[in-house]
C-alpha cells in the first residue's frame, strides 16, 4: 500500500463533516430546483424565518432544545456502540411520567415539582429503554430492532392511555387535562420581562437553559468519569473491555438507560414548557432528528449543540417557508433532514480516501520542498 499521512484533527472533525453537510445542502438545492423553485430564495426565506426577527429566534431555540436532548441521547448510546433508535418512544413515555406527576401531585410547590417532574421523566424514559437494553445485554437481541418495536409499542400504549384513561370526562379529544398553571415551566420572555427586558413571546422556556447544563454534564460524564470511560471502552471494543475487567452488559444497560433518560427531557420542554398537557404524538419525530443531530455533531456535546441549532433553524425556517412558498411544504425540511443523515451519517466515509490522498500528496510535496 502507498504511504498515507494521518489526517489532522481539523480535517477529521471539521472539514470532512462540513464537506458532507455541504453536499447534503447542494442536493437539497437540486431538489428545490427540480420542483421548480429558486434555491437562493428558499435559503433567504429559511434564514429570515429562523433568525430574521426576535420571535423567530425564540422558536428556533425552542426546537433546538428538543434536538439537544435527543441528540445527546443518541450520542451516549452510540459511545457504547449501540444504536438507540428508540428516543421517540422513550421521550413519549417520559411525557407520561411528567404528566402523571404534574396532574396527581399538583399540590407540590413549583421548585419541588420541577425536581419531581424531572425524576419522573427520567425514570419513565429510562425504564422504557431498560427492556431493549436488558435484552441486548443479556439475551443478545439486537437493540436496533427492539427499540424500533418499542417505539410502536409506546405509540399504541399512549393512544390507549390517552383515549381511555387520561382523557378528561366529557372531552372528545384524546389529550390529558391541562397541568396547573403554577407548575408550568416559565417562558424565557416572562423571565426577561420580570427582569425588565422586553422580549417577543415565544415557546422558548427554561428547559433551554437546562439543555445547556445537561450538555455540559454529558460531556463531563463521557470524558471525565469512570463510567464514561467504561462506556467508551465497551463501545470501542467489547472484547478488550472484557479483558480489562469490565462487564460489557452492565455498561450497555447503563448507557441505554441514560440515553432513555436524556430523551425523556423532550417531555419537559414540550409538556411542562409549551403544550401544558399530554398530546398524541407530541414527540413529532424529534427522536429521529436526534440521530441526524448526533451524527453531524460527531457525538460530542458541542457538535450536538451546533447541529441542534442547525436543525432548529431548519424547523423554524421551514415553517416560514411553507407559509411563503405554497409549493414547498414543511416536508422540505424532512427531505433536508434525510439527506443530512444520508450524507453525514451513512456516507461519511465517501470523501475520506480522496481527501487523505490529496492531503498526503500535499504534505509529501511540502516535505520535499523543505528538504530541498
Amino acid at each position, binding site marked *: *500500500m502507498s504511504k498515507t499521512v494521518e489526517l489532522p484533527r481539523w480535517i477529521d472533525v471539521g472539514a470532512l463533516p462540513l464537506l458532507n453537510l455541504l453536499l447534503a445542502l447542494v442536493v437539497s438545492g437540486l*431538489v428545490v430546483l427540480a*420542483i*421548480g423553485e429558486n434555491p437562493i430564495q428558499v435559503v433567504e426565506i429559511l434564514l429570515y424565518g429562523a433568525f430574521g426577527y426576535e420571535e423567530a429566534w425564540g422558536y428556533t431555540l425552542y426546537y433546538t432544545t428538543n434536538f439537544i436532548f435527543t441528540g445527546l441521547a443518541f450520542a451516549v448510546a452510540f459511545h457504547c456502540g449501540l*444504536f438507540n*433508535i428508540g428516543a421517540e418512544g422513550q421521550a413519549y413515555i417520559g411525557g407520561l411520567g411528567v404528566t402523571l406527576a404534574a396532574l396527581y401531585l399538583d399540590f407540590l410547590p413549583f421548585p419541588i415539582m420541577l425536581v419531581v417532574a424531572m425524576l419522573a421523566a427520567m425514570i419513565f424514559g429510562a425504564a422504557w429503554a431498560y*427492556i*431493549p437494553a436488558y*435484552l441486548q445485554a443479556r*439475551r*443478545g*437481541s*439486537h437493540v*436496533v*430492532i*427492539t427499540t*424500533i*418495536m*418499542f417505539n*410502536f*409499542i409506546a405509540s*399504541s*400504549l399512549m*393512544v*390507549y392511555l390517552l*383515549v*381511555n384513561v387520561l382523557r378528561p370526562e366529557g372531552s372528545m379529544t384524546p389529550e390529558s387535562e391541562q397541568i396547573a398553571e403554577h407548575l408550568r415551566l416559565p417562558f424565557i420572555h416572562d423571565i426577561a420581562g420580570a427582569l425588565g427586558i422586553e422580549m417577543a413571546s415565544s415557546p422558548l422556556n427554561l428547559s433551554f437553559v437546562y439543555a445547556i447544563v445537561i450538555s455540559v454534564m454529558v460531556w463531563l460524564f463521557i470524558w471525565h468519569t469512570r463510567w464514561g470511560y467504561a462506556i467508551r471502552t465497551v463501545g470501542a471494543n467489547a472484547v478488550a473491555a472484557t479483558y480489562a475487567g469490565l462487564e460489557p452488559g452492565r455498561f450497555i444497560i447503563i448507557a441505554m438507560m441514560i440515553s432513555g433518560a436524556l430523551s425523556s427531557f423532550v417531555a419537559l420542554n414540550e409538556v411542562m414548557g409549551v403544550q401544558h398537557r399530554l398530546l398524541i404524538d407530541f414527540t413529532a419525530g424529534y427522536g*429521529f432528528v436526534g*440521530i*441526524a443531530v448526533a*451524527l453531524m455533531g460527531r457525538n460530542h456535546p458541542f457538535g450536538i449543540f451546533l447541529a441542534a441549532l442547525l436543525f432548529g433553524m431548519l424547523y423554524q425556517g421551514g415553517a416560514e417557508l411553507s407559509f411563503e412558498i405554497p*409549493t*414547498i*411544504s414543511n*416536508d*422540505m*425540511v*424532512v*427531505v*433536508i*433532514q*434525510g*439527506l443530512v*443523515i*444520508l450524507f453525514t*451519517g*451513512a*456516507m*461519511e*466515509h*465517501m470523501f475520506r480516501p480522496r481527501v487523505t490522498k490529496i492531503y498526503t500528496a500535499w504534505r509529501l510535496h511540502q516535505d520535499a520542498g523543505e528538504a530541498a
Partner: protein
Amino acid sequence: MDTFQLIILLLDATLRTSTPLILAALAGMFSERSGTINLALEGMMLGGAFSAAAVAFYVGSPWVGLLAAIATTIALSLLHGFACITHKGNQVVSGMAINILMSGLTALVGIALFAQGGKTPALDKGSRFQPITFPGADAVQDVPVLGLIYSELLSGHNILVYVAFLAVPAAWWVMYRTRFGLRLRAVGENPGAVDTAGIGVVAMRYRAVICSGVLVGMSGAYLSTAQGASFLQDMTAGKGYIALAAMVFGKWRPFPALAACLLFGFLDAAATRLQGVVLPGIGEVPVQLVQALPYILTVILLAGFIGRAIPPKALGRAYVKER
C-alpha cells in the same frame, strides 16, 4: 351473518393486509441474507407506492405504474448499496436516512405535481389492478363451505396478491436450490470464504439488494394501485417495519416469514373488526393492544423465549477485502 361466513371474510381481509407484508418481508430477506441490513423497507415502500400511483395516473395503466415503482425502489436500493456496500457506511443509519428522505420527498413531489396536499389524484378503474374472478366463482357461491372458500377466499383478489403468495416458494427455490441463492447466503455468513472462492462479494451484495428492490417495489405499488386508489402521505404507516418484524419473526426464512406475515396481517384485519366489540368474559378488546401485538411478539421472539432467531453472521458488516 353466520360465524363461518365471518371467518371467511376475516381470512379474506387477512390475505389482503398480509400481501404487502409478504412482498416486503421477502425483500428484506434477500438483502439481509446477503449481509446488508435493510431498515429502509418503509421508505422504499413509500417511494414505490408514490411512483406507482403517480405514473399510473399519467399513463393510465397499473402495469406501467408497477414498473415505475420497481424502478424507484431499485434506485433506492442502489443508493442504500452505494452507501453501505461501496462506501462501507453504517447500514442502520443509511436505512433510517432513506426512510426519512422518502417520507418527505413523496409528500413534497406530490404537492408540487398535483397540489392536493401530498395525495395523488384518485385513479380510475383502468389504472388500478382489478380483482380477478376465478372461472365459475359466482356459480359455486351457494355450495356449502367449499363454495364460499372458492368464491370469497381464493377468487376475487388482484394479481399482486397471487404474485405475493407465489413469490414465497419462488424465493425459497432461488434461495435454497440455485447457485445464486447459495452464494447469496454465503456472502451473508462468511464473505471471506466467498471471496476466496473467486466470487465478488460486492457484486453479489449488489445483486441481492436489487432483488430486494424489485420485491419491495411491488409491495409499494400494491398499496397505492391495488389495495388503495391513490397515494396518501405516509400511507405505509409502519408496514415496512412490520414486514421487517415478520422477517425477523420468520428467522430470515421464506416460509416462516410467510406465516409471520399472515399472523400479523390477521391481527391487522382483526383489529379493524374488533373496534368497539365487547367479547363475553373479556370485555371490550383494546384495539391498540391488538395493533401492538406484532411488535410485542417480535420482541418476545428476539428475546429468545419462542425459539431462537439467529441473524446471518455477517449481517451489518461491510466487507473489507484483505490487502
